[in-house]
C-alpha cells in the first residue's frame, strides 16, 4: 500500500483511493459536505480543502480539495496547515451567510452535519451583515418537509435523487447564490427513495415530515438496531422512541444489505406502530377487553390453557411477517405436524421452491451489495420496484458498472462521480427484464412484456445457451433472438446476476432463474442469484417447514381441528374471500395473537395483543437467507408482549411444546438450535444477552438524553430503575458501554464531533466499507459449490399455462398499498393508489371498455368488481389485478379470468 504523509507523519492508504475518504478512514476529521461515500466526489462545496506539497522540500504547497485528489505514493499533505484552516473557515462563513441559524426550531438540530462542520472548522463569529437570500419552500408530500432557507447548495440532494436514484421530478433551479432544489411545482415527491433526502441533506432543508408530527429532539430518542419489516430484503434500520411512542425510523448502515439507504415504505411504514389500528388489550368476543396488567395477563393464560386442554389438539398458523422465534415457538407449541404457513398456497409453494433453489446452488444467494456490483442482470418477472424497492436502487447502480469500467480505463477514478457521469453519459450495462407489465426497470434496462410462461421459456432457453447445451426447441424467433442476446450478455459478465421472485407467481420462472444462475456459475466467475420473497420473514417461515394453509383450512372445514392459534396474520389477505369466510364460519375457537386490527381480528374468538418490531426482539431471515436480529427500541407493556413470549407462556401453562422453561430469547434460541440444528447459526446473528462490552450493556439512549428523571414527573418524582432487558445486551438506559459496540448491537451512529448520521464513518473499517467486526447478520444458506449440473426443464409447453380462454389475470403490486403494515401508516396511506384493474387499451377497445368503467371479473372462483385503468404498460391479453385489500390478495395468480359484467361510467 502506498505511504502518504499527513502533517509529516506516514500513513498507509490504498492506491488510487479518494484522499478525503482515505483520511476519514485513517480517523482524521476533515469537514465536508458535497462528498458522500455512496455518491462520490463532486468538488462543489470546497469544504474539504487541505494543503498539498509537491515534495519534501516544498514548504509553500497549495490548497487542494481532498475529495478531488487520488492517493499516490509519497503524497504529502497537511490538514492543519494555517492557510487550509483559514480557507475552510471561510467556506463555512459563506455557507452560513444566508443560513437562518434557526437551530432551536429546526428538526435537524442536534444531528446536523452543518452544525458539526461549523464547529469543526472553528467558525464562530459572523462577519456577514447583509440581507440573507430567502426562498419559498414547497409542499413535497407526506414524507419530506422542505425548508429551502437552510440550504447550503451542496448538491447532495439532487445528486442522490436524480443521479443515484433516477428520480425525475426534482432538480436544481436557478443559479448563483439563489439555487433552488425542489420540484417544478408543489406536490408529492415521486421517487420511492425520497426519504433518503432527509439523511443525505447535511442540514435541515429536507426533514422527516412524519417525525415532525410527533417530534422529539434526536438526542432524546431511545434507539436500537432493528430490521425493516416491510419487504423481504431485510434492510437495517434504527427506530427511535420516546415516551412509549415510536417517533421515526432511520437507515442503519449495513455494507452487505442496504448500505446507506432505505426506501420510503421502509422508512415511513413505521407509523402503524402508533396507529389507531393497534391492538393494545386482550379481548374475548362479546366480553370486551380486560383491564389491568395482571387481570389481562392471567385471563389470557387461563383462557389459552382451557383452549389447549380440549380434546382435539390445536393447530397453529404462522406468519411471514412474524419473527422466526414467534413462528418457531408456535410450531413447538402445536407440534411441527400441526404448524401451517399463513400464506396463500401459491406463495407457500413458491417460497419453498425458492428456498430449495437457493440451497441447491451452486450460485450464491446474492446480497443487495452483490446486486449493486453486478455487471449484467436478468430479472425474470419480479416487479422489484414495488416488491423489493431497494433492490431496484441497487440495480440502478449495477447498470453503471460496465460503462464505469470504461471510464476507469480512461484514467477516471470511480469515486470521481462527476467525471464518471460525464464520461459514461447515458450508457448502461446490460439489464434485461421480463414482465407482464412495464415496470420501473424499463427506465434503465431493456424490458420485454411477456406472459409468465413465455418469460420462463425465455429463461430456460438462455440457460441452455449459456451452458452450451442443445438450444431449446419450439421458441418463437423473437424469444430465440432475445435468449441469444441475454445469454451472450450474461456470459460475458464477471459478476452476472439473476433475479426472480415469488411475486410473479410462477414456479417455472423461479426454476428458470435457478437454471440460468447454475449455468453461469464457474470457478472463475461470481454469479449471483437473488430470489425476492414477499415479506420480512417469508424465508424464515419456510425454513421451519410449515404445512400449507390449504391443508389447515381443509382440516378446519372437515371439523377435524381443535382450537386455531393464528400468530400475526390476517387470513383475509391469504385466502380468497369466500374461503376465508368459510374458514371462520367453521373455525370454532380461533385465538389470534397480533398487534393490528384486521378482518381476522374481528372474527377471532380471542385476540391477544403482541409487540411490534419496535417493542420486541427476534430474528428475521431475509431473501438472501441472512438471519438478522432486531432489537426493541422501547419495552413492551405487560399486556403487550412478544408473540414468542406469549407462546412460551402458553407452553408453560398447557404443558405442551416443551418451552415452559424459556424466559429469554437466548433460552428460546437454544431450543431452536437443538430442535432444528440447521438453524443453529441463527444464534450468531447477534451477540447473546450476556455478551457485554467491557462488562456493561450497550445503552439505548445517548449520554445526553435529557429528562430521564422527569419523564414521569406528571405522575411521580421518584427515579425508577430503568426497565431490565433480559433478552439482549442492550440496556434501557443512557448508561453503559462507551466504546464501539459489536456491529449487530449499534443503536445509533454517534461519535465525538459527529452528531449526524455521517458519524457512520467512525464505525466502518474504511469509509464505505464493512462495519468494524463485519457487517451484521448471519447467512444461513451457503450452497455447495459443486452442485449437480443440468436443467430443471425447458419450461411450460407453449400450449400450457392456466387453462381457459379469458384474459390472464396477473398480480400487480404497488409499493404503497400491497404491504399490510405500512398501509396502516398515515403517510404511506396517503399515497396508496385507488385499486384498479390494468388493461391494455387495445384489449379494452376489443371489449368496449373505457377508462374508469367498472368490470366484474371472476378469478379463481372469486368476484372482483373494480374500475379499469387503461395502460399500454400491460402486456396484451393480460389484466393486471392490484394486490391490495379490495383486489387480488389471497388469489393464486396468474390465473385465467372471466369478464362477467361491465358497467359504463
Amino acid at each position, binding site marked *: 500500500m502506498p505511504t502518504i504523509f499527513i502533517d509529516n507523519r506516514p500513513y498507509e492508504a490504498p492506491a488510487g483511493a479518494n484522499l478525503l475518504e482515505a483520511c476519514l478512514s485513517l480517523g482524521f476529521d476533515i469537514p465536508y459536505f458535497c462528498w458522500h461515500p455512496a455518491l462520490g466526489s463532486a*468538488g*462543489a*462545496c*470546497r*469544504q474539504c*480543502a487541505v494543503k498539498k506539497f509537491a515534495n519534501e522540500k516544498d514548504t509553500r504547497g*497549495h*490548497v*487542494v480539495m481532498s475529495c*478531488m485528489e487520488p492517493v499516490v505514493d509519497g503524497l504529502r499533505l497537511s490538514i492543519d496547515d494555517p492557510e487550509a484552516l*483559514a*480557507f475552510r473557515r*471561510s*467556506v463555512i*462563513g*459563506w*455557507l452560513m*451567510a444566508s443560513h437562518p441559524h434557526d437551530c432551536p426550531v429546526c428538526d435537524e438540530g442536534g444531528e446536523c452535519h452543518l452544525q458539526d462542520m461549523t464547529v469543526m472548522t472553528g467558525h464562530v463569529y459572523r*462577519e*456577514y451583515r*447583509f*440581507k440573507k*437570500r430567502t426562498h419559498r419552500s414547497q409542499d413535497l408530500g407526506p414524507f419530506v418537509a422542505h425548508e429551502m432557507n437552510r440550504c*447550503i*447548495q451542496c*448538491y447532495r440532494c439532487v445528486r442522490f435523487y436524480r443521479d443515484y436514484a433516477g428520480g425525475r421530478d426534482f432538480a*436544481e433551479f*436557478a*443559479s*448563483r*447564490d*439563489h*439555487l433552488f432544489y425542489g420540484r417544478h411545482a408543489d406536490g408529492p415527491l415521486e421517487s420511492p427513495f425520497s426519504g433518503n433526502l432527509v439523511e443525505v441533506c447535511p442540514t435541515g432543508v429536507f426533514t422527516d415530515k412524519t417525525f415532525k408530527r410527533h417530534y422529539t429532539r434526536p438526542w432524546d430518542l431511545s434507539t436500537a438496531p432493528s430490521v425493516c419489516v416491510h419487504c423481504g430484503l431485510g434492510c437495517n434500520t434504527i427506530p427511535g422512541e420516546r415516551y412509549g411512542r415510536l417517533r421515526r425510523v432511520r437507515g442503519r448502515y449495513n455494507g452487505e444489505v442496504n448500505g446507506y439507504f432505505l426506501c420510503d415504505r421502509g422508512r415511513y411504514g413505521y407509523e402503524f406502530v402508533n396507529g389507531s389500528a393497534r391492538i393494545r388489550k386482550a379481548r374475548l368476543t362479546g366480553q370486551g377487553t380486560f383491564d389491568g396488567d395482571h387481570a389481562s395477563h392471567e385471563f389470557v393464560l387461563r383462557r389459552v390453557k382451557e383452549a389447549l386442554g380440549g380434546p382435539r389438539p390445536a393447530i397453529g398458523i404462522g406468519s411471514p411477517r412474524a419473527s422466526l422465534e414467534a413462528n418457531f415457538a408456535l410450531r413447538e407449541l402445536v407440534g411441527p405436524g400441526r404448524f401451517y404457513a399463513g400464506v396463500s398456497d401459491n406463495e407457500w409453494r413458491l417460497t419453498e421452491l425458492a428456498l430449495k433453489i437457493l440451497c441447491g446452488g451452486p450460485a450464491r444467494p446474492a446480497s443487495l451489495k452483490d446486486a449493486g456490483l453486478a455487471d449484467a442482470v436478468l430479472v425474470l418477472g419480479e416487479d422489484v420496484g414495488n416488491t423489493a424497492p431497494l433492490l431496484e436502487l441497487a440495480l440502478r447502480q449495477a447498470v453503471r458498472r460496465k460503462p464505469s469500467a470504461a*471510464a476507469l480505463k*480512461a*484514467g*477516471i477514478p470511480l469515486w*470521481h462521480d*462527476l*467525471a464518471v457521469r*460525464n*464520461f*459514461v*453519459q447515458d*450508457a448502461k450495462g446490460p439489464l434485461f427484464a421480463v414482465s407482464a407489465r412495464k415496470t420501473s426497470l424499463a427506465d434503465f434496462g431493456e424490458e420485454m412484456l411477456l406472459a409468465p410462461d413465455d418469460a420462463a421459456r425465455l429463461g430456460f432457453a438462455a440457460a441452455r445457451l449459456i451452458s452450451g447445451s442443445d438450444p431449446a426447441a419450439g421458441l418463437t424467433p423473437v424469444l430465440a433472438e432475445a435468449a441469444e442476446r441475454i445469454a451472450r450478455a450474461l456470459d460475458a459478465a464477471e459478476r452476472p446476476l439473476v433475479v426472480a421472485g415469488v411475486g410473479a407467481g410462477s414456479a417455472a420462472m423461479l426454476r428458470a432463474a435457478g437454471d440460468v444462475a447454475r449455468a453461469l456459475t464457474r470457478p472463475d466467475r461470481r454469479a449471483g442469484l437473488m430470489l425476492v420473497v414477499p415479506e420480512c420473514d417469508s424465508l424464515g417461515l419456510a425454513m421451519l417447514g410449515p404445512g400449507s394453509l390449504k391443508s389447515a383450512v381443509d382440516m378446519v372445514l372437515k371439523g377435524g381441528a381443535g382450537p386455531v392459534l393464528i400468530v400475526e396474520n390476517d387470513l383475509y389477505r391469504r385466502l380468497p374471500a369466500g374461503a376465508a369466510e368459510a374458514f371462520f364460519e367453521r373455525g370454532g375457537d380461533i385465538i389470534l395473537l397480533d398487534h393490528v386490527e384486521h378482518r381476522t381480528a374481528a372474527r377471532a374468538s380471542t385476540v391477544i395483543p403482541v409487540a411490534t418490531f419496535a417493542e420486541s426482539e427476534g430474528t428475521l431471515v431475509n431473501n438472501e437467507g441472512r438471519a438478522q436480529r432486531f432489537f426493541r427500541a422501547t419495552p413492551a407493556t405487560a399486556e403487550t408482549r412478544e408473540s414468542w413470549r406469549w407462546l412460551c407462556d402458553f407452553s408453560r401453562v398447557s404443558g405442551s411444546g416443551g418451552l415452559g422453561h424459556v424466559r429469554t430469547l437466548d433460552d428460546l434460541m437454544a431450543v431452536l438450535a437443538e430442535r432444528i440444528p440447521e438453524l443453529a447459526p441463527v444464534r450468531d446473528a447477534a451477540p447473546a444477552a450476556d455478551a457485554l462490552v467491557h462488562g456493561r450493556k450497550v445503552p439505548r439512549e445517548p449520554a445526553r438524553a435529557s429528562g430521564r428523571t422527569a419523564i414521569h414527573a406528571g405522575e411521580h418524582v421518584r427515579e425508577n430503575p430503568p426497565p431490565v432487558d433480559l433478552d439482549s445486551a442492550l440496556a434501557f438506559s443512557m448508561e453503559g458501554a462507551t466504546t464501539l459496540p459489536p456491529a449487530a448491537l449499534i443503536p445509533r451512529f454517534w461519535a465525538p464531533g459527529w452528531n449526524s448520521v455521517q458519524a457512520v464513518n467512525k464505525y466502518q473499517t474504511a469509509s464505505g466499507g464493512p462495519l468494524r467486526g463485519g457487517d451484521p447478520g448471519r447467512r444461513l444458506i451457503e450452497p455447495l459449490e459443486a452442485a449437480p449440473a443440468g436443467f430443471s426443464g425447458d419450461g411450460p409447453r407453449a400450449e400450457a399455462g392456466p387453462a381457459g380462454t379469458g384474459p390472464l389475470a396477473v398480480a400487480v403490486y404497488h409499493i404503497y398499498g400491497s404491504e399490510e403494515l405500512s398501509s396502516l401508516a398515515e403517510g404511506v396511506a396517503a399515497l396508496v393508489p385507488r385499486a384498479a384493474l390494468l388493461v391494455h387499451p387495445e384489449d379494452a377497445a376489443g371489449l368496449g371498455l373505457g377508462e374508469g368503467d367498472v368490470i366484474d371479473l371472476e378469478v379463481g372462483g372469486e368476484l372482483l368488481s373494480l374500475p379499469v385503468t387503461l395502460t399500454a404498460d400491460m402486456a396484451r391479453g393480460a389484466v393486471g389485478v392490484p394486490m391490495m385489500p379490495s383486489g387480488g390478495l389471497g388469489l393464486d395468480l396468474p390465473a385465467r379470468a372471466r369478464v362477467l359484467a361491465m358497467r359504463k361510467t
Partner: protein
Amino acid sequence: MERPLTKNIDPARGPLDLKGYEAAGGYRAVRKALGTMAPEDVTAAVKASGLRGRGGAGFPTGQKWGFVPMGPEAPRPKYLCCNADEMEPGTFKDRLLMEGDPHLLVESLIVSCYAVQAGICYVFLRYAYQKSARLLEKAVAEAAAAGYVGRNILGSGFDLEIHIHTSSGRYMCGEETGLLNALEGRRASPRAKPPFPPISGLFGKPTLINNVETLCSVPGIINNGADWFRKLSPTGEGGTKIYGMSGRVKRPGAWELPMGTRLREIFEVHAGGMKEGYAFRALVPGGASTDFQTELDIDFDFTHEPQVGSRLGTGTAIVLDDKTCPVGFVLNIERFMARESCGWCTPCWGGLSWIVKTLEAIEAGRGRMEDLAILDRHCRELAPGHTFCALAPGAVEPLQSALRLFREDFERHIREKGCPWR
C-alpha cells in the same frame, strides 16, 4: 503589415461570399491540408507556430491538439467545439471575425477538425450573436455545397459536419466545460478537470475546444508556414492579435496588430488616447476578469503582461478615466460576475455575492473600514485552485488590483459616507 485575420473584412462591403472568399485566396488551407498533409503534420505546424489560445488563457494550441487521441483505437466520434460564446465584458473580437469574414472561420474549422480527425463540429455562439449565427450558417451551407464540408471532402476521405448552435446565454457557457454541458442540454456548470475534454469531452468523447480567434489563425499557418507566423510578432509569441479598447478613449475599436504590440501604441495611436477632458487612470487589459494596470509601456502579450501584474486575457482593454468612480467600475464588474456564477462551488456563489453586497454598501455610503479587510480576504480566498473553475479567481482580479491601486478611493467612500463622484 500583414493582417491574416481581418484582411477580407470591409465593414462597408459586408462579408465575402464563397466566391469572393475563394478569389481572395480562401480555402487554400483546406486544399493544402486535406490534399497534401497528414493530420499530424497539421498539428505539428500549429505546434511549431507557437500559437497560443486567444480565448484568454494563452494555452499553447498545438499542445492542446496533441492531447486528442489519434489513430484507429481512438474513441469516436471526436468533436471540435468552437467557443464563440464571447461573453467577457468589453470583448468583441470574435464577433468582428464572424460578422466580418465567416468563411475564414469555416475554413479554420475544416482544417482544425482534420488535424484532430474530429468528424463533428459545433460552433457555440452566445445568444446575442444571432447575426454571426446567420452569416455562419450561410457560409457553412455554401461551403457544403462546394464540397468543403460533408462527406469525403475534396476526395480526401475526411467527413465533417458543422453545426451552428446559439445558446441561451450564460457567461459560464464560455468556460469550455460549461460549454460542453450546455451543448448536451444540461446546466452550464463547469466540469472537473482532469479529465480534460480531449479525453472526455462532449458526450464523453474526445473533444477539442478552441476560441474563434485561435482557430482563425490556423489557415495562415497552413498556407504560409510556422516560421512566417512566428515572425509576424515582434515578441516571439507569433501571429497577430485583435486588440480592442473601450472606455473614454477617442476611437474605441478593435484592430489586428502584431502579437506583442506595445500597449501605449494601441492606446495612443489606434485608440487615439483619452477623450478631451478625461485623463487616463488605469485599464483592465483583457476583459473584465483581469487586473487593473496603470502601466502602458509594455509588450502587450501573454508573456509580458504578468510583469505588470495582470494578464493579456482577451486583449480587449477597458480604460478607466479620472471622472469615473473606480468603486462603481469594480462594483459593475462584480455584479456581473456574481450574477453569472453558476452556483456550483461555494467560494464563487458565496464569495461573489458577499463582495457585491459589500461594494454596494461602500458605494452607497454604508461602508465600514473593516469591509476592506473582508474584501481583501475574499481576494485571497477566491484564488485559483480554491474554486472549481476560473470564474471567481478571474472575478477578483480587478477587485484585488483596485483595492491596491485605488485604496484611497475606497476609503474616501467610507469616510465620506458616499460616492465622491456622484
